[in-house]
């Protein structure tokens, strides 16, 4: 039986900022594949290239060299192959941020529904599905609360619901547990693991949070823009 096609595939990706003597090499020859159902952690010291790598996978930063494929589709190979990158992000990628980034002027339900209306779903249907997602994440009783009224854990669960709204195949998370205590951080990570398993999604998480390291299937360590280690759990 052949291995499943990776949902995220980076081949010899490099990223250089600036030119000539002032050039800074942020990533060098990074090759990485993340398959369906995998939860992969990206760690490394500050300046190691984690955020740059996440930005490239999120299609908000152009790599200097290499090839990027998402969900089996070549996105970057010298230039962007996909014309509508926002549509790609809207339909294939879910984002979870360090500080949840919920829109402060929409309640929890509408924050989740917005992602679906942007993808073309009707408002009522989107709200119905948003309620179902919030129910799955056990935060539906706070559906009509504004983000400022939510606790850190509640807000992060709403943000996860928003990330899952359009059934993305790829979920990118940037320090999703940095603002949470140990218990809530574990709850969030368990939730991401469950999502990855149930929906066969690839989950990539940038983190410094050692207390959740045991929740990853793989931990990729970056240093000076290169992959220093790529360890499977229990290896």
């Amino acid at each position, binding site marked *: 039986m052949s291995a499943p096609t990776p949902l995220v595939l980076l081949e010899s990706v490099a990223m250089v900022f600036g030119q000539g003597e002032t050039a800074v090499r942020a990533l060098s020859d990074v090759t990485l594949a993340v398959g369906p159902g995998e939860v992969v952690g990206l760690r490394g010291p500050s300046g190691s290239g984690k955020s740059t790598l996440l930005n490239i996978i999120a299609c908000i930063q152009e790599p200097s060299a290499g090839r990027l494929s998402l969900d089996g589709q070549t996105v970057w190979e010298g230039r962007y192959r996909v014309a509508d990158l*926002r*549509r790609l992000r809207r339909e294939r990628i879910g984002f979870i941020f360090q500080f949840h980034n919920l*829109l402060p002027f*929409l309640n929890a339900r509408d924050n989740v529904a*917005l*992602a679906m209306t942007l993808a073309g779903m009707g408002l009522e249907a989107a709200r119905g599905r948003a309620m179902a997602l919030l129910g799955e994440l056990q935060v539906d009783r706070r559906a009509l609360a*504004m983000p400022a009224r939510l606790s850190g854990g509640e807000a992060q669960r709403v943000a996860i619901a928003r990330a899952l709204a359009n059934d993305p195949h790829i979920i990118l998370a*940037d320090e999703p547990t940095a603002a949470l205590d140990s218990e809530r951080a574990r709850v969030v990570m368990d939730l991401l693991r469950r999502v990855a398993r149930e929906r066969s999604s690839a989950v990539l998480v940038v983190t410094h949070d050692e207390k959740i390291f045991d929740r990853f299937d793989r931990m990729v360590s970056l240093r000076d823009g290169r992959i220093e280690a790529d360890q499977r759990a229990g290896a």
Partner: protein
Amino acid sequence: MNLALADIRHGLGRFLLTCLGVGLLMGVALSMVGIYQGLVREALALTRSLDAGLWVVEAGTRGPFAEASRIPGDVREMVARLPGVAAAGSLTLRTAEADGPTGRLRVQVVGYEPGRPGGPALLTQGRGLGSARFEAVADARTGLTLGATLMFGTDRYRVVGLTRGMVASGGDPVVFVGLRDSQRMQFRLAPAAARRAEAAGAPPAGTDTVNAIVAQLYPGADAAALTEAVRRWKHLTALSGPEQEDLLTRSVVQRARIQLGMFTVVLLFVSGVIIALIIYTMTMDKRREIATLKLIGAPDSTIAGLVLQQAMLLGGLGYAAAVALVFSVRDHFPRAVELGVAEISVMAGVIAAICLLASLLSIRTALRVDAQQALGG
């Protein structure tokens, strides 16, 4: 889901206060437009009320509103006999100060012959002048009421009627008095030299002098031909009704109109800059939200719509506040603030255009917000 409205609801108090501030600014601009229009209306109020087809004045002058004009009173009979003239009346005009019940008043005194052209077209209270001496019909702007007394020098006048909206081009309210009374007023206020000459035994100077003769024409009468006929008379000249109005608007109030017009343009420009800055600040405050929207895949139209709708709502609510404000205080202005449907509609269009242009810079900035800004702390 309307993001612009949701964002406004979230910070409703702040948004309404901003609208109020913008409304006050627009209120000033709208008032200037109203004062500009009021200036023209007031300048023409008297001439339009007199409804004269022909103005006969001293040769070499441009009429009593533009410069001094003195002609003998008997010219009125000559004008009345011209073919095509239905009626003619003598008119004196002068600015004077009078003591009223509430203090000193500066008014435009118009002397006319009751029963002949030259009097007020419409009374809001009381009656017109009769044959009795020392009666006056005053405009409501004087603050006088029926029966009030008005002192011109040592002469006491009683107010028997009131008009509305009758003001001179300078904004002074009009007081109509009988021609003989007005001529007496002018004679008494004559230069001291004339009084000394009279005291020395010289015969009294003739007081049957008027400033202009106004004539109402029969329908179909050729005003141009009549004007030409009078211009051939020695020491006299004539202007048609439209010529008199044109003279008033182009000459007498022209500088004030240009001044107000230029000030209004400057004010609108300043308003545009301030509105642009407010919209820009509102947009910059949402930079992180805009970055998040971009990251989750919102198209440019959604982000541009958010900025544009808020700009138009700001302009619309601000303008509504401005209209309400100006209409609630305009009666307290010393000069007329004339705002009709046309002025309000045109100004609404100008404000909409300003908001649209002002939002373009913010839309450009919003569309340049990097989605990366949503990531990290």
